[in-house]
């Protein structure tokens, strides 16, 4: 009885009408279900949403905020476009970077410093020497290139590349290419030059005496033993005299990146625990710790990330927000924190919206890496997402 009654009711409508109603319902459901309340758009870089089909690996904005630079995988060119007009693209051939490069502008935007990236790292707990290159933005020519480095940084006066390799810390003059040893032969993994060019921070393995001086460890024998095996310290040197100024009063996990904040306030230390160190079931967990750039005193805030790759992190133009790339259950995310308190204020989930592939008929590959920049207006942010660039208005 019930089946017949149902058939009669269905029979009153034409099939296309029923299908159209069902589709409309589904679309409404999908659009409401996918709406996370964020204001965003996909940029058409050079006139296309999918940036000619290849993956972007890193994004940066020039110090004056006028130019956006995109590095890419598979040897595709480095792309530059005005922040106000993404259609006007200029390209530079920066060579063959298979898994892409982390590309950052120098202090005036004259150069870009490129750091080799990898898709996979099978030995995440070990040091891996990589390639660094400095390219002149105007000519597109490489003015410095070196393999087998653990870290490299450009001085703010753009004359010198500070390199950290198996043989310690060296200074390379960009003009002459002359390489000079600093006499600091301890091996490290990360290096940063302060925004005033006076100090250089270096991450390195600790000695027992250095560890015993840390209040965090004191004479906790087990902690000292463990720290000697897998811990790292950061020492800050005077760049002119190369004399040590201070060692940060904290034991870090393996440090992957050191960076001074653009406003010269903070020294950021990005570290990740040894994967077998225990205590954390998520092997991707890493932190950016914050120290006072002048005194070296550790600040209380730290910014966590679950990114599968080394995460990008930046501050907003007014210096109040700190953003870091992370990974959610399925999708990459950008987390926005209050810089002073470490309280999360917003996040953007880089997920695919239902039916968007169907609508544009484009392919949207992604390598699980997210890079982003704050735009100078203090409202918007650009984020890489595979072969697309997304503009998020985080302060509508």
């Amino acid at each position, binding site marked *: 009885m019930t089946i017949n009654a149902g058939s009669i009711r269905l029979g009153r409508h034409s099939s296309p009408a029923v299908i159209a109603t069902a589709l409309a319902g589904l679309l409404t459901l999908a659009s409401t279900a996918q709406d996370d309340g964020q204001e965003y758009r996909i940029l058409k870089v050079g006139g296309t949403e999918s940036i000619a089909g290849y993956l972007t690996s890193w994004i940066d904005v020039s110090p004056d905020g006028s130019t956006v630079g995109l590095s890419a995988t598979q040897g595709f060119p480095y792309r530059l476009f005005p922040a106000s007009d993404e259609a006007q693209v200029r390209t530079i051939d920066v060579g063959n970077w298979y898994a892409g490069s982390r590309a950052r502008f120098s202090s005036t935007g004259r150069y870009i410093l490129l750091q080799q990236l990898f898709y996979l790292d099978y030995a995440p707990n070990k040091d891996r020497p990589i390639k660094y290159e400095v390219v002149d933005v105007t000519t597109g020519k490489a003015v410095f290139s070196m393999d087998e480095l653990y870290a490299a940084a450009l001085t703010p006066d753009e004359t010198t590349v500070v390199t950290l390799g198996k043989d310690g810390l060296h200074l390379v003059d960009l003009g002459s290419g002359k390489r000079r040893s600093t006499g600091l032969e301890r091996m490290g993994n990360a290096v940063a030059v302060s925004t005033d060019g006076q100090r250089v921070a270096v991450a390195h393995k600790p000695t027992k005496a250095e560890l015993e001086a840390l*209040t*965090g*460890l*004191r*004479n*906790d*024998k*087990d*902690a000292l033993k463990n720290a000697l095996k897998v811990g790292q310290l950061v020492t800050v040197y005077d760049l002119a005299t190369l004399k040590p100024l201070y060692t940060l009063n*904290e*034991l870090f996990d393996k440090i992957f990146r050191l960076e001074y904040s653009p406003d010269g306030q903070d020294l950021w230390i990005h570290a990740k625990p040894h994967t077998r160190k225990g*205590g*954390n*079931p*998520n092997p991707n*967990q890493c*932190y950016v*710790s914050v120290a006072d750039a002048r005194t070296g005193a*550790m600040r*209380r*805030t*730290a910014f*966590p990330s*679950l990114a599968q790759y080394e995460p990008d992190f930046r501050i907003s133009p007014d210096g109040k927000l700190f953003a870091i790339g992370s990974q*959610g*259950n399925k999708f990459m995310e950008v987390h926005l924190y209050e810089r002073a308190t*470490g*309280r*999360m204020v917003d996040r953007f989930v880089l997920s695919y919206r239902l039916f968007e592939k169907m609508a544009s008929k484009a392919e949207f590959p992604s390598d699980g890496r997210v890079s982003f920049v704050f735009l100078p207006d203090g409202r918007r942010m650009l984020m890489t997402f595979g072969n697309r660039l997304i503009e998020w208005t985080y302060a509508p």
Partner: protein
Amino acid sequence: MKHLLITGSLLCATGLLAQEDMPTMWETKLEHRIEHTGTGTEERGYSYAASEKEITVFDNKTGATRWTGRFKDLAPRLNKVDELVPFWESNVLFLFDRKMGKDQIACLDMSDGRLLWATDKYQNVTDENVVYIPELDGFAISLKERLVWMMARTGEERWSTDKFKGVVGQYVVTGDNKLVMVNFVPGNLGALFSGYKNQIVRIDLTNGNILWENTYVGRAERKVISKEFLYDLDVVGDKVFLRMNGMQVYDLNTGANIYTAAFDYTPDKLVGAPAGAKKFGVYHAVADPVVVGDDLYVLDMSNKKSQYVKKYDKNSGKLLWTSPEIKEARAIPAMYVVGDRVLLQIGGNVEAQAYIYKREPDGQGGWRITEEWRIWHPNVKPNGIQAFSTADGSLAWESERFRKGITNAVVVGDQFIVCSGKELYSMDIATGAEKYAVPVSKGGLGLADQIMVYKDMIVVIGDKGVSTFNAKTGAPVAMGKYKKSDLEDFEGDRMILKTDKADIACFDLDDCTYKQFNARTGAITSMSTDGNFVYVYEKKNVTKVGTR
């Protein structure tokens, strides 16, 4: 000083003379023996007493029977009750009848005895397997293979999941019918849950979907007798704080472990188990973590030879400092953070609980079985007091005074007041300088077992009574001498001491006078939540006595 002593002596004398009986409000004789009891609050207005075959719910004000009946009449499938578990918040009584593979469970409305539902669907369920979640008015029942969610009033099974093993322990409702919960294996059911692992999960209670799952360090336990959880779960903002052997912090949205400041610690051989103990546990040997603003102070007792205090950033888990070694402290039951000092009480009273079962020949060819559920507070040595700077963890001061003994310590204003058992010491929190030392074991009260703060006084609970001292000056205020007894309960200005033979004395903490009630050996006493009454359950009798 002389004036104070005279006043003190007079008060003590007053205390010694005051030995009135507690007034009887009513006395009720039931039709059955009393094996299970449950005392409802005065606002609720009723309580229950039950044998294995009958139950009576009586009025708290008059003692009149509200309803009574045999379980086999109330719930036809039940002949007897092996376990009776009240869930006061849902107003229901869970009844368990064990029948070798055909266990019966029934649920009664506590207010009128109406049968809500009964089932034989679930086997091997004990009170430990059932958790009532008042926010959603349902029961989470842990079975061998699955976790079942059932509505409290109807018994309707809404869903079940096999992804959660063990028993639901602590939980926090996070809104939208979602729950963060921790599992545990009750001691007597260890073998029941195969493939058990420590789980902390976030679950959607509307459909049983596990939103995320992670593991935790340590062993989630309940006290063996009083059944209190030995850990805490809390959600603050987007973080889940699990206090167990320290602190373990998870992201509420993803379940990712943000940081861990937890240390495995087993209070091995601190206190010997009594003869015949079938269940035994030692608790409060390590002080809980202390949170002050954004700071988290945790005791690291994982190493038997050396122990440390560690200070972390509460939000990020960043280790800020480690204290110097606290060598060979077997127990650190109390940690306080006051001003710029972290104060540690090393050694002293810990809590022990045991279920003791003895089977002895009765001399006539049979056996005499005695059962005892004991909670006591043994003292653990070595003892000491240490204070550390909150700024960098350096040792600020320590006291050699307490080598021979400590009961416990309390903080009053800028004083750290510590009892050695014989004397009460007050020390300046900043410097450790001694402000006063007064004897507390004189006057026939015996050695002090414990001290507490009441108004501006220190209450010293001795072996044989209670005395009070001015917290600022140490001057004696009042004293009341009773028989050898232990602290049973306290509420507001009333404190109950109970002897081994179940006699009770209720002290007025303002002047240490007391009223007493001599109950039969083995009587169960229960203080009302307002502190004004005590319910005494003896064989077939229920007596309500006043404390004022």
